[in-house]
């Protein structure tokens, strides 16, 4: 993951609640085994509608998506994050997010900015009136602001997520630095929690007498 310090750009208002990951990237796109090229699938069912906000030329260069409550609920598909980023989004601002979506975003460096619904609404109004409004999101200070209007809000960002974003850390690498702790944990835990060892043969068939 590339480090993320400050994200700056114009916003596009997606005034809908419960935008689930099935809408962000419809399932037809999930058959691909690559990680790139999902931008074309972003909101693909909605993009057929010429009045859909992403089709509005005023927002053609927007890189910050501003949406209603519960953005990214539903399926765990990380493809939703890949699609948003591949399309050119660097941040999503909403009153709340789906849990897994938020996790997935933090792994890829897509900022999820959670602010009060009234603030999201006023932000939507501002960018609806003037699509060229420049929005700045600062990771180190956990702020989102429109300098030209003197509008600024703080958002919650755990220290851990902030550090990971600022440093572009690879989670797996971080965990493997503590590999000895995992090994120690396993040495007693393996006695408690059964594994699959001995249940299936190489062909995946049940080895022992199966009474069920």
């Amino acid at each position, binding site marked *: 993951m590339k480090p993320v310090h400050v994200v700056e750009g114009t916003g596009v208002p997606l005034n809908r*609640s*419960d935008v*689930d990951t*099935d*809408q962000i990237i*419809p*399932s037809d796109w*999930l*058959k*691909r*085994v*690559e990680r790139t090229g999902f931008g074309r699938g972003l909101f693909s*069912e909605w993009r057929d509608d010429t009045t859909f906000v992403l089709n509005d030329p005023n927002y053609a260069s927007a890189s910050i998506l501003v949406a209603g*409550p*519960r953005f990214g*609920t*539903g*399926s*765990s*598909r*990380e*493809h939703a*994050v890949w699609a948003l980023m591949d399309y050119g989004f660097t941040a999503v601002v909403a009153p*709340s997010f*789906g*849990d*897994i979506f938020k*996790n*997935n975003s933090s*792994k890829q460096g897509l900022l999820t900015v959670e602010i009060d619904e009234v603030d999201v609404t006023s932000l939507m109004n501002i960018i609806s009136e003037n699509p060229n409004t420049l929005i700045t999101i600062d990771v180190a200070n956990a702020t989102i602001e429109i300098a030209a209007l003197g509008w600024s809000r703080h958002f919650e960002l*755990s*220290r*851990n*997520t902030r550090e990971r974003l600022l440093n572009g850390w690879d*989670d*797996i690498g971080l*965990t*493997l630095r*503590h590999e000895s*702790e*995992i090994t120690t*944990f*396993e040495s007693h*835990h393996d006695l*408690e*929690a*059964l*594994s*699959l*060892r001995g*249940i*299936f043969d190489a062909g*995946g*068939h*049940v080895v*022992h*007498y*199966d*009474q*069920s």
Partner: protein
Amino acid sequence: MAGVTLFEKIWKSHVVASNDDALTTLYVDLHLVHEVTSPQAFDGLRLNGRRVRRPDRTLATADHNVPTDALTAPIADPISRRQLEVLNENCQEFGITLFPRGHENQGIVHVIGPELGVSQPGMVIVCGDSHTSTHGAFGALAFGIGTSEVEHVLATQTVPQSKPRTMAVTLTGSAPAGVTAKDLVLGIIGRLGTGGGAGYVMEYRGPAISQLSMEGRMTLCNMSIEAGARAGLVGVDETTIDYLRGKPGVPQGPAFDEIAEKWRRLISDDDAVFDHEVVIDASQLVPLLTWGTNPAQVAEVSGVVPEPRDDADRRSLTYMQLTPGVRFSDIPVDVVFIGSCTNSRIEDLRAAADVAAGHHVAANVRALVVPGSHRVKKQAESEGLDLIFREAGFEWREPGCSMCLGMNPDQLSPGQRSASTSNRNFEGRQGRGGLTHLVSPAVAAATALAGTFALPKDAS
């Protein structure tokens, strides 16, 4: 000192390391893998020269893409075919047990874990799939993860997690006859809303839960994610133990009794304190369906399309092509789908077959029954359920996710209306432009016979 919740017991016994602030490195006992959310994770391992740390704690199956018609027919869609091939190659390369299409143990990932007895009480279970919450029915902490996390678990057998809060959802009283686990969970989500469980692990408890079979508990835990919860849980009791006894993945004979003794302790203490509590009187619940495009938009099967309360409701009504005030029993249905990880287990098929027996699917309806796994299919066939369905005009198909989502050939056409036992009624979920109503297996079967939304005869 206050008692300890079941969640807390499982969490505590899986902490490998606590980082400075919010994240805990949690050990994973069982990692379930399927073809959709894993290819990019395996690729990541290869790129970094990493191996799978514990192939003996990793199990893979093909489910989302598999066609459900004859097993001998080739997979027509080259991209689906490729994704399944890539799963085969990856499992081969990394030494992971895989149940490919047609294998005797193959099925929907959340059906096979429990039925093989590999999803066990006290475990931390993850899968790159949000409905992993299903396995919480066994008193396990089970939750969905994204592809980056799948890679993380493959490489380290751990997952970094922020600690969720706990919510007790207590169902008092007894569910009236004809009210199934699906109705209970739709009722719960209808009350809590799609965000009501956000940040929580929900533990279902109370008399109405104790009375539920394991299949019913799985249906309930399965849909916890639709209320926004990280996971759903039910404490271990004799129903849990009886279900697991004799399953391939558990110890057999006296060794089982020994481990069962440990499992019995996996309940919340009587005086445990939850961060939030919700009490619902199950005796007040009725058979429900969803009318909108999120699972909290529920109504009574015997009622009418509700008036919209806000813009989101109005949008849903427009998409669903519905008018408030119209009786559901007057709304024709094109497709009935009985299947998915919510309702494709043997008990679900029995409930549907009970309703279907001796009747016939209405002329305007295409009705599909898709068992959750080959084991379920075999069991159903040994009970003659396939014959009941076939004679009643239902299609009896091969296992897979099928029409739960539009990744395989079973899909709705634009404008087609379905009664579906699956878990998501999102726009286009079952195929572009499809109109999905979530229902229980019994209501699905009754609807197939009536041609419009209907309750089973003995319940109406």
